């Protein structure tokens, strides 16, 4: 815990978890030991091995070692070969990187990206920052998605079911049989259905067109695991346009969000994160955006809000009505005559209403609900605020999802009625994301021909007759339209790894077309070039995208939303005190339908900091009421469905609600034996259907302790900050009075070290803006892939041996204003409101990326006995693996706890059967960075390989380095621009400017270690409660 005092006497208490706040005995014991577990000596004793070495043993071992060393020395070095190309491709230079503008396809989203390749192998995604409309920001899941290319679990050959087993066969055989089957289906007058997830590509549309011409009765049905139909439907009813609008968070000064994780997982969060952060930092006048969040689970977005009110999701509608009425009062519009809304009477709603109204046309109200009525009310509020055409654009709409659940349920009925003769499933996985509890095994038995096109075997296609391997997206050509009239190009960056064929060609060949390569060009490429008439093809490919922003056409809002409000009022039973379950997505696995890649799960959840599992988040109050503690396995049941998952007491969780993440519990047959198999439980069967669309809030669930416990792999409490002032924050009011707030106190320091002289050459440094960092973890995955950081898996994380060089620390503190909380509590008439317990509902969160600080007076350098860690003349704290002998003194002496020890050899080790354990997976390794072996220490190097490479390029070109030319992997990928890296000796660089900012401070500056990283004080756009300022 940290007690932060300022001259006004306000105290801010930070804690990393409830254990720390309560300072439990176990926590105290744990925090004493940095290395949680030593050598398993006790285990060795148990196994009957004596720890005492006698003289004979000593001599034996001594003699053996001597002999072994002598023999090893006699051994000749292995012969290595250098095999050049027979004909070197023009663009490829061995040992040099080559970049392509292409795209990342992840969780239904198309993200323009720059793909870095080495010797024809993609090794890293970098964001395409030239886009204006379609965001090129890559979040954690996008970076991790690269590993799916080198996944040995991909389908290698076309598969055919022979005596109930899928067997490899050839494309000719598969094609012939499928064409026969399709003809049969067409001849019997049955339907041929193509079931895909949302795919807005040109080639996909063409393939369907051709298929429809060839066979009668071809129908296309879209199935997405996560439904946004509420928004689609609401916009259709409100404006006659069934679209996902383009939300412009960059233009919103005030944002009110209801259960909407728009920074983490909602729709195009990579874009919203960037836009939102644009006004998240106060300008010279102290002007910044303000964010109100109303939600039941503490989401990543909620943790970034200025004001957050814990509500029950089921009552979201009432809050919306209340908000509508408060704004209507100010606007002089008609009130919605709903009495129940009074029950949610909240100061925060009132405050947000007035803030929104003050910024009409510059505000935005969003809801994560999939309920049409709620979304129509949101539209009504935005309409009243005049936000359409300004912060919400329906003209340049997003094509994120085209899912129509009615059509899907209709398809199920038709299959049931044996009207479907052939089913072609491309990527969609309805068996896993089974929302209505359909029995697909039974249903699919009624279809004669079942064909799947996919890169991996999944829950749906393992039962099919034919599985046709699709190219990975990095092996394919295509053009997508993620936004209306804006296009993103996909070009291959590697030749096909397996005997696969792009889905387009597969579908065309079933329509009887010749899809063979012509002069080395694939059919997909030739056709794409033929169909692309909007601009010069080669130019478009080079840029990777083509954007057109049309002028926003005003739409008239016409819907009887009073009726919808009434619907909400009728539906919500205000005195219903049943426990409600809120299903959410995590920033890693999201909907869970993509082939799982290990970084998705090794990356901790930003809020709970738990890796590798899903779990039940419960409120502190519920935990005390039912005496549940972290890790207790709970049985959660709703009707006949039930799952058993460990509990996690989540501060900020609304009492009376629990939360569980979707996207887990996949049932896959894989070649690899690792933690990705059997992760958590699948919650899709819990998804209910109400008001005609999927509902992710399930009412009246029961929980019950099973008596078992399960350890959660949490990186949360692995380090203690020992009450040091490491994260700083202030309110906007304080900032306006004094921009130096919290940083005004300077320590009188006496140094033990000699200062370094950086006047020559470069002086590398980093600035991290705590205001902009939203905790998304994109930097963590980007760093790990750039620097060959190994995956350690669940067990090792439980043993606190995570290897990530960069971690995002999450600190809780109690919100000072309690008035909102108590008002919400009024409606929980029956609940035992207790002040300390309700405290836990109202927490504030601060994120702080923590990495090697590259201290000038580095404590680690002082203690290394073998000079494995030394200082460079450019300000880097260097780590030399080949010198390290693994004493771990440096990690012990590091005040920031950022050094990582290689407890094992993480490559070629069956215990860690992730991508470092097979030849295909190793293709992703960055050849410029050493793969560390067992027994050495490692840590952030400020991406020294990138610094060296960029410097060398400048030297070769005989020029000075450009400002901001060197980018570390984390700074480059940060969607919000929170991390800035550069040369302090360059006066024009962004970093030099940020170092002069009043908000800048060094973490633990009192230690006088002189870090090269500046943090910038977090400013919250809140009014501090006066009462609090007089405390302490």
């Amino acid at each position: 815990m940290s007690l932060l005092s300022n001259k006004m006497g306000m105290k801010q208490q930070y804690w990393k978890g409830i254990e720390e706040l309560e300072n439990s005995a176990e926590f105290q014991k744990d925090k004493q030991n940095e290395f949680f577990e030593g050598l398993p000596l006790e285990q060795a004793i148990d196994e009957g091995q004596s720890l005492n070495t006698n003289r004979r043993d000593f001599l034996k071992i001594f003699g053996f070692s001597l002999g072994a060393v002598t023999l090893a020395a006699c051994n000749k070095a292995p012969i290595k070969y250098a095999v050049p190309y027979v004909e070197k491709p023009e663009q490829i230079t061995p040992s040099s990187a080559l970049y392509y503008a292409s795209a990342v396809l992840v969780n239904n989203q198309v993200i323009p990206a720059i793909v870095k390749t080495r010797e024809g192998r993609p090794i890293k995604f970098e964001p395409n920052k030239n886009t204006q409309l379609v965001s090129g920001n890559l979040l954690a899941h996008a970076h991790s998605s690269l590993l799916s290319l080198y996944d040995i679990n991909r389908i290698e050959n076309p598969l055919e079911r022979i005596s109930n087993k899928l067997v490899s066969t050839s494309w000719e055989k598969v094609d012939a049989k499928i064409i026969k089957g399709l003809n049969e289906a067409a001849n019997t007058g049955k339907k041929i259905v193509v079931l895909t997830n949302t795919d807005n590509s040109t080639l996909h549309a063409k393939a369907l067109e051709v298929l429809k011409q060839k066979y009668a009765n071809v129908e296309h049905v879209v199935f997405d695991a996560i439904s946004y139909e509420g928004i689609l439907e609401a916009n259709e009813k409100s404006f006659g346009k069934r679209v996902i609008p383009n939300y412009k968070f960059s233009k919103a000064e005030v944002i009110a969000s209801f259960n909407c994780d728009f920074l983490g997982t909602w729709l195009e969060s990579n874009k919203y994160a960037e836009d939102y952060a644009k006004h998240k930092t106060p300008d010279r006048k102290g002007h910044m955006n303000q964010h109100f969040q109303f939600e039941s689970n503490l989401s990543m977005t909620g943790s970034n809000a200025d004001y957050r009110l814990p509500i029950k999701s089921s009552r979201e509608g009432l809050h919306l009505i209340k908000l509508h009425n408060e704004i209507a009062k100010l606007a002089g519009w008609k009130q919605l005559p709903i009495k129940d809304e009074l029950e949610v009477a909240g100061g925060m709603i009132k405050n947000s209403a007035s803030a929104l109204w003050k910024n009409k046309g510059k505000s935005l109200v969003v809801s994560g609900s999939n309920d049409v009525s709620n979304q129509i009310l949101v539209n009504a509020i935005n309409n009243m605020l005049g936000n359409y055409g300004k912060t919400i654009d329906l003209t340049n709409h997003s094509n994120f999802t085209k899912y129509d659940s009615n059509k899907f349920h209709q398809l199920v009925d038709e299959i049931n009625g044996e009207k479907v003769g052939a089913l072609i499933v491309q990527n969609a996985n309805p068996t896993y994301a089974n929302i209505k509890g359909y029995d697909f095994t039974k249903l699919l038995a009624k279809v004669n021909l079942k064909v799947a096109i996919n890169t991996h075997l999944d829950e749906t296609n393992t039962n099919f007759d034919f599985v046709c391997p699709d190219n990975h997206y990095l092996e394919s050509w295509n053009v997508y339209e993620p936004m209306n009239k804006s296009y993103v190009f996909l070009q291959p960056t590697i030749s096909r790894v397996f005997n696969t064929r792009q889905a387009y060609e597969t579908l065309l060949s079933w329509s009887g077309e010749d899809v063979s390569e012509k002069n080395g060009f694939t059919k997909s490429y030739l056709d794409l070039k033929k169909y692309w008439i909007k601009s010069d093809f080669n130019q478009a490919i080079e840029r990777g995208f083509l954007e057109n922003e049309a002028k926003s056409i005003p739409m008239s809002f016409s819907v009887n939303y009073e009726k919808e409000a009434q619907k909400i009022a009728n539906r919500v039973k205000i005195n219903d005190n049943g426990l409600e379950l809120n299903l959410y997505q995590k920033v890693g696995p999201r909907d869970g339908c993509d082939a799982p890649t290990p970084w998705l799960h090794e990356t901790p959840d930003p809020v709970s900091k738990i890796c590798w599992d899903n779990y039940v988040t419960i409120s502190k109050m519920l935990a005390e009421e039912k005496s549940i503690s972290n890790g207790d396995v709970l049985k959660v049941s709703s009707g006949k469905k039930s799952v058993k998952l460990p509990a996690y007491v989540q501060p900020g969780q609304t009492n009376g609600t629990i939360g569980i993440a979707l996207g887990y519990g996949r049932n896959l047959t894989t070649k690899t034996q690792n933690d990705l198999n059997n992760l958590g439980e699948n919650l899709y069967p819990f998804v209910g259907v109400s008001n005609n669309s999927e509902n992710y809030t399930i009412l009246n669930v029961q929980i019950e302790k099973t008596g078992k416990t399960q350890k959660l792999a949490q990186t949360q409490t692995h380090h203690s900050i020992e009450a040091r002032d490491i994260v700083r924050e202030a309110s906007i009011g304080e900032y306006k009075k004094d921009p130096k707030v919290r940083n005004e106190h300077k320590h009188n320091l006496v140094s033990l070290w000699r200062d370094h002289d950086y006047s020559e050459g470069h002086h590398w440094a980093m600035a991290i803006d705590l205001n902009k960092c939203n905790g998304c973890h994109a930097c963590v995955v980007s760093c790990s892939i750039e620097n060959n950081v190994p995956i350690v898996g669940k067990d090792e994380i439980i043993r606190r041996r995570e290897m990530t060089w960069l971690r995002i620390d999450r600190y809780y503190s109690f919100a000072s204003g309690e008035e909102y909380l108590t008002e919400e509590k009024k409606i929980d008439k029956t609940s035992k409101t207790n002040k300390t317990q309700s405290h836990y509902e109202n927490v504030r969160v601060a994120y702080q990326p923590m990495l090697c600080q590259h201290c000038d007076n580095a404590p680690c350098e002082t203690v290394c006995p073998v000079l494995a860690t030394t200082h460079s003349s450019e300000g880097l704290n260097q780590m030399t693996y080949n010198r390290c002998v693994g004493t771990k003194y440096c990690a012990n002496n590091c005040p920031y706890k950022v050094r990582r020890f290689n407890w094992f050899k993480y490559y070629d080790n069956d215990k860690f059967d992730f991508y470092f354990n097979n030849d295909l997976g190793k293709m992703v390794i960055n050849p410029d960075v050493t793969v560390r072996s067992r027994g050495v220490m490692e840590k952030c190097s400020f991406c020294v390989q990138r610094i060296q490479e960029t410097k060398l390029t400048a030297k070769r070109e005989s020029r000075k380095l450009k400002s901001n030319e060197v980018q570390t992997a984390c700074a480059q990928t940060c969607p919000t621009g929170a991390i800035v890296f550069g040369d302090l000796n360059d006066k024009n660089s962004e970093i030099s400017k940020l170092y002069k900012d009043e908000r800048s401070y060094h973490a633990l500056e009192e230690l006088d270690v002189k870090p090269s990283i500046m943090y910038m004080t977090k400013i919250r756009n809140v009014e501090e409660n006066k009462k609090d300022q007089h405390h302490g």
Partner: protein
Amino acid sequence: MVLVVLLLNVLNKNLKRIINEKQGVGSTPSFYQSKIKPVISKWNPIIATLSIGTIVILLVGAWFFNFAKNEVGVQKGYAPEQPIAYSHAFHAGKLQIECQYCHSTASYAKSASIPSANTCMNCHKGVQAREKYDGEVSPEIQKIYNAVGYDPDQAKYIDNYDQKPIKWVRIHNLPDLAYFNHSQHVKVGNLECQLCHGPIQEMEKVYQYSNLQMGWCINCHRQRGIDAENNDYYEEIHKKMKIEGKTYYTVAQNGGLECSKCHY
């Protein structure tokens, strides 16, 4: 070794002095009786065994250390048989072909790169050395044709030929933990290839000329200067050199001895 001899010598002299003092003036015994026997008889057998043992272990250890330091993993002089008996002495020496004609990426990439077979074909499409082999294509040149799929009699490439890359044996092997970039040295440092690779233009069969040990790298970095004058990247350094009247600025002064210049 020298140290041990000296030590024994000193010990011997001291003992001699002690013996002489004790015996005073007397009959002169034999050399063994007067000099050696008294010494040995005074030795404690345990201490003697231990000290001799220690000396032996130290000597063996020193030898091992030296062996490990200079021999293990050091392939100086390594000259393996190559799949094609290509002569640098002929091509680079007699014909004076520029090194970077074949090792073309040395000036702009990390690796100098072994030329791809089509580079050989630039000349060897015509040059077949038939005069030396009774009108037949030289068997060594034929190996290139086998790799790329070229029919010298028809003077054209064979259609749909399954090309076979040439498996050259790698001579210079740096460990993976060391990063070395050719362009840094060839282009930026303006170094001659021969500085590290030796008289390559005289080598019939290429051998490893330098020992490629870290000390060898460091030595050069200590001695050689950077070319600050002709490279705008070093503008600041060049200005400073002019002010201070220096003509030389070594790589080491520019941070060329720091660990993470090569190890990361």
